């Protein structure tokens, strides 16, 4: 529990809160980018270098940009007249709070029950690569297939329907 952890955690949570609370959708997207970056830093602080960089590459480099594109394509940067929050926002917040309360309670009560090792695991990219093409080769192939399908699907879904009733 170092100062760096608190700092990063604060940045992450602030980014997440801003993403949820800000009115302008583009601001939300940028805020969520900050949250993604914070999570990546948390990964790095957990000695998971590879996962951290992948997180930056995928989330900041791709998902954030994708969200921004979607916002601009759907004119989402205009703030709607009847508010950005739904009428039942209070219920939503209450439910979210309940979830946090329950999980937090569970974590606090049970975290000490798990055996912990503090030694820094020495895992290189080489090991991860070997694991990916070794024991995890089947998930890797499935993910490859999934990404291909998702690419094709996204293209088709977003493609202009020719001769549609526009």
């Amino acid at each position: 529990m170092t100062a760096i952890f608190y700092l990063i955690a604060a940045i992450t949570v602030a980014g997440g809160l801003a993403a949820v609370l800000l009115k302008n959708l583009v601001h939300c997207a940028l805020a969520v980018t900050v949250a993604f970056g914070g999570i990546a830093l948390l990964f790095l602080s957990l000695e998971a270098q590879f996962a951290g960089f992948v997180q930056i590459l995928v989330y900041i480099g791709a998902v954030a940009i994708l969200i921004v594109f979607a916002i601009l394509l759907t004119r989402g940067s205009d703030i709607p007249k009847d508010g950005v929050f739904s009428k039942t926002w209070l219920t939503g917040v209450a439910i979210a709070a309940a979830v946090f309360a329950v999980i937090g309670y569970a974590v606090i009560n049970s975290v000490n029950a798990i055996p912990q090792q503090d030694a820094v695991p020495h895992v290189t990219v080489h090991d991860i690569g070997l694991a990916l093409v070794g024991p995890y080769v089947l998930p890797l192939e499935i993910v490859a297939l999934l990404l291909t399908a998702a690419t094709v699907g996204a293209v088709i879904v977003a493609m202009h329907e020719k001769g549609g009733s526009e």
Partner: protein
Amino acid sequence: MTPLGGYLLVAALMFAIGLAGALVRRNAIMVLIGIELMLNSANLNFIAFWRYGPHPEALTGMMFAIFSIAVAAAEAAVGLGLVIAIYRHTHTTEIDKINRMKG
């Protein structure tokens, strides 16, 4: 509080924030953003358990996180594609207005 507990709490908080975002925002893209936050917090849990778990050399948590990131990327692409397609039909992304199964 152990370091693991800290990470888990942060993850829980991020999960709750993402859930709140998905529940209270009216824009479909915001719902997606909330879901992404929830996924990220789950990843954080995986990595944290990998780091402080008994067998980090097994790489299980790490692999879970990596695959989850890959799948989340695909999910984001398809989800946003859907939002755009819905927007083309209904000219809105307000999720409480999109409640019919007809385009």
